[in-house]
């Protein structure tokens, strides 16, 4: 079964005007997403996760590496040729208020992809399709005649999703789709996305820093720190047995809505993130890592498979202590592959 998306050693550097230096946004990221699968791409600000998404969609040009969409290499084909792939890979943006044209009615926004890609030449047909899409994302027909600013954040995001699925894509890239929403709207949108995936077999690249949501929606998880992948695995592997110190510190920072869940207080990172312009010679986390050793400062640890698709980039992986505190008292559901 061909994967829907495969990245091999994707690299993106941004040149800085007036300087020979570059901002290293993405350094050597590789992963695969199969049909109907969700990969959660996790990282904090500056990790490069959003840049990965934008490279896949060729909204920015990758510096090097390979992007395979359904087995075809789309990394460097000219924009005009890439355009034919766009109906098959769409994006849902973070701030729905800003990502919708304020002067377009919701109906027109949802209709636009149909027009662009000649999906329904007949106007009445198009209208019906727009209404179908609205129903799918649980919008009322009345909302179709509104402008974005007249809707709540959750409703706006529904419009964004309807627009993205109008051309029945294979891959949806979701860039923090719910971080600006209220908790109740957030939950509804995530439930909608899961339902859509189950019904239509969409693949998702779910980019987020919200670990609880990632855990809920993803089959596999990839964690990025400062432009690199530090750990990849199934959701169960990452959340129950995180190996990388950064993964552990991320997980220990999650605030579960349950006062009885104890938070482990070890694996705290000290200091501040190094600059993405002058990356350290060794492991990028070494300056802040509580368990760093001298060899961590000398060379970058490679991403090694430690078992069944679980990969970690850390020299200390086999010698880290028992997990102990990482087993939370409360066992929340995860999505089993």
């Amino acid at each position, binding site marked *: 079964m061909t994967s829907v998306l495969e990245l091999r050693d994707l690299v993106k550097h941004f040149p800085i005007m007036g300087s020979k230096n570059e901002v290293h946004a993405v350094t050597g990221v590789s992963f695969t997403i199969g049909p109907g699968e969700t990969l959660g791409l996790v990282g904090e600000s500056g990790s490069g996760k959003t840049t990965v998404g934008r490279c896949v*969609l060729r*909204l920015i040009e990758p510096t090097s590496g390979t992007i395979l969409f359904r087995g075809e290499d789309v990394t460097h084909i000219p924009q005009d040729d890439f*355009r034919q792939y*766009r*109906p098959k890979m*769409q*994006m849902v*943006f*973070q*701030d729905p208020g*800003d*990502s*919708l*044209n*304020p*002067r*377009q*009615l919701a109906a*027109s926004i949802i209709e*636009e*992809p149909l027009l*662009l*890609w000649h999906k329904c030449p007949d106007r009445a047909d198009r209208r019906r399709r727009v209404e179908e899409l609205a129903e799918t994302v649980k919008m009322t027909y009345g909302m179709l*005649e509104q*402008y974005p*600013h*007249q809707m709540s954040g959750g409703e706006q995001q529904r419009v*964004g999703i309807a*627009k993205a699925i109008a051309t029945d894509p294979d891959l949806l890239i979701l860039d923090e789709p719910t971080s600006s929403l209220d908790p109740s709207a957030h939950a509804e949108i995530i439930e909608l996305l899961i339902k859509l995936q189950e019904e239509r077999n969409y693949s998702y690249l779910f980019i987020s820093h919200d670990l609880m949501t990632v855990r809920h929606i993803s089959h596999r998880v990839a964690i990025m720190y400062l432009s690199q992948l530090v750990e990849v695995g199934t959701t169960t592997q990452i959340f129950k047995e995180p190996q990388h110190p950064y993964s552990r510190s991320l997980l220990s920072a999650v605030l579960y809505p349950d006062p009885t869940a104890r938070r482990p207080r070890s694996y705290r990172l000290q200091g501040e993130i190094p600059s993405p312009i002058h990356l350290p010679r060794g492991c990028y986390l070494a300056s802040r890592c509580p368990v760093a050793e001298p060899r961590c400062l000398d060379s970058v640890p490679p991403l090694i498979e430690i078992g069944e698709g679980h990969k970690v980039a850390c020299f200390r992986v086999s010698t880290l202590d028992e997990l102990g505190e990482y087993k939370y008292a409360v066992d929340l559901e995860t999505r089993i592959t």
Partner: protein
Amino acid sequence: MDGVKRLSGTLGRDVRYLVGFFRARPLSVVGLVLVLIFVSLMVFGRSLAPYDPEKASSDFLFPPGPKHWMGTDRAGLDVFSRILVAPQVDLTIGLSAAALAVLIGTPLGVISGYMHNWYGSTIARVFDVLQCLPPFVVAMCLVAFAGQSVSNVIIVIALLNSPLFVRLVRSKVHSVQERKFVEAAACLGNSKWRIMFRHLLPNSLEPVLIQFPVNAGWAILLTSGLSFVGAGVRPPTPEWGAMIAVGAPLLVTGQWWVAMFPGIAVGLCVLGLALSANALEILLDPTRR
């Protein structure tokens, strides 16, 4: 466009909205009324004028009185009649020149703001240079070259005014294109041209609408200067700017009415246009409903 579609589909609701809109904004009603007055003067001015505005008489420099409500000028021409007929020339020139400047400048502004390649910057530079030229001198030369007529004056003034709109739109486009919906449009597969004219342009019109009436006023004043040196409208065609130019030196000698009344007329006209443009800008902005 969506605005029109919406209006026809929800007429009752929109009429009620308009009524509420004007009730809440009395100044925009003032603007609308002023514009209507001047526009009707364009049509009816000549028939309402008590005297022939172009026929000289022997009543030189009469102050405002029962025979001549706004007095007369040096040639005995009745100021009031001339003011009534002037909109025919002034509004035509002012509005047409400003509108033409908008039509030229706006699309070029969008292109030069969005296309970050050589022709985007070339457009910007060309218009920057145009804007540096002394408008009055250039206008004189161009009219002298092309011939003195109303349409030539309009074209010349429009050309001189368009760099302003190019610059306004260009800078607005610079900021609008940073917004996520533009990236979303690209992601959807919109071509560059569709992005420019379907997404960027409608969201960049705000400064244009606000600048338009001011520009029309400036066009009227530029015409007056041109008329004064004989490159604009030929005397004795009534034209506010020319009347002000002729009456200005008379202010010192005490015959204030020759320049004052046309001055007030220009002011009121531009005010009406400005208030209306303001209201129009709010009306056309869906986010303010």
